């Protein structure tokens, strides 16, 4: 059993890891065909992952409702929302509209999901303003630099700011293009090197946490 649980997954990981790392550098039609097939598999697995995700969500919230844990009412709302949407989606054959007329599924999307998500995003502005007032203070030299840069970028990104202080637009562009881009690039390079190192560790079986912590 250990062989099936440990060695086989490690072997599959090593072979596929090495094959697809090499595939990128081999522009032969056979190599391209391998990639086409593999990405098709990935898409199919992606579809199953979605089903798995929904099932897991249902299972988690069912347990919450059964045990009447704190906030179980919200889980009930989630159940009603998900089951209702799935039922309407199946009934409408997944279409939001048929011949220009909205289906029940389209109605849920347009008049429930769109405004709810929009509202969630819109209230961010209020919380950001409140948080900025409470915590954006020049407590140290570094915080002061951050604060000045933020004020310049906020000024430079809106027409009123550029109208009041014309140089703020150019300064904001410089901050984004030079300071921000170079720091981000440094972070990106670091993260990428880390990802390469981790990939090697996974391919060669040094990092095995993805296999789970089951009994051997």
């Amino acid at each position: 059993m250990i062989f099936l649980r440990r060695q086989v997954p490690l072997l599959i990981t090593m072979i596929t890891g090495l094959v697809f790392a090499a595939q990128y550098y081999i522009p032969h039609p056979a190599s391209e065909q391998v990639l086409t097939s593999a990405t098709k598999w990935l898409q199919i697995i992606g579809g199953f992952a979605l089903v798995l995700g929904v099932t897991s969500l249902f299972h988690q919230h069912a347990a919450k409702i059964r045990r009447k844990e704190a906030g179980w009412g919200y889980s009930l709302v989630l159940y009603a929302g998900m089951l209702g949407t799935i039922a309407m989606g199946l009934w409408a054959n997944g279409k939001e509209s048929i011949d220009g007329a909205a289906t029940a599924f389209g109605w849920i999307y347009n008049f429930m999901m769109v405004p709810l998500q929009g509202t969630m995003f819109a209230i961010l502005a209020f919380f950001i303003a409140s948080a900025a007032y409470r915590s954006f203070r020049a407590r140290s030299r570094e915080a002061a630099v951050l604060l000045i840069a933020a004020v310049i970028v906020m000024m430079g990104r809106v027409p009123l700011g550029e109208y009041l202080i014309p140089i703020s637009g150019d300064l904001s562009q410089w901050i984004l293009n030079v300071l921000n881009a170079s720091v981000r690039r440094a972070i990106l390079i670091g993260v990428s090197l880390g990802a390469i190192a981790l990939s090697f560790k996974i391919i060669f079986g040094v990092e095995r946490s993805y296999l789970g912590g089951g009994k051997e």
Partner: protein
Amino acid sequence: MTFSERMLKIDRRIIFAVIGVCTLLPLLYPVGLPIKISPEVRGVYDYMEALPERSVFLLSIDFDPASKPELHPQAIALLRHAFRKNFRVVAMTLWVSGTGMADQLLTQVAQEMGKEKGKDYVFLGWSPGGTAVIINMGQDLYQSFPSDYSGNPTKGQPVLDGVQSLKDVNYAISLAAGNPGVEAWYVFGKDKYKFELGGGCTGVIAPGLYPLLRSGQINGLIGGLRGAAEYESLIGKKGRAVAGMDAQSATHMAIIMLVIICNLFYFSQRRASKQQHQIG
């Protein structure tokens, strides 16, 4: 409690009210301040302008309704430009929750511009797999999307004449609110299949995409509502983004004022406590 301390602990509902007023008033009474065009937005516009008629333009609408206020105007302005230039528009999404919205916006702009489905544009919809969809499209577009969102077979549609994979796309733009988005389109798409790529994104993620812009990995970037307003100005058809810029100006100014005021009270409080400490 001193005055500064009280002001620093001000009821947050007052701040909410200030932001609410700063958003509402400019929407009700617009000022219409001029909008300066940034080089990154012009990069996208100029590239689109230089492309010949019937070029294949791929628009990946990689956002959900949460980012609609910022990215919907970008999508509308880009589609208007593409249809005006008589491009063949291929739209799709990598975000399942954005599918209905993407279909609606494409249909709306296509109808407004008098374009025909299947001949001038196609909406491929969504396919599972995230970034794998991009690689799969790079290998064979018809394998990733055997049928379009309406269920019609993609093969044989005049809009896709001569298009076999991403290699045949003249220009692609991802309008992204996160991942998968512009970065995924570069890493898994442009880098391997060599097509020109532009980006559009929410204001929050724009700073993170500047390294791609500076290195030429994307040839332009439309950032947030400001970027959308710039694009609307460039195509000469002002819409929601331009209308929203006054509200954004006012709220930015309000937040700047709040930050300055809070720092004034903070320093005054700090000085007072220092003086007290010296006396004590």
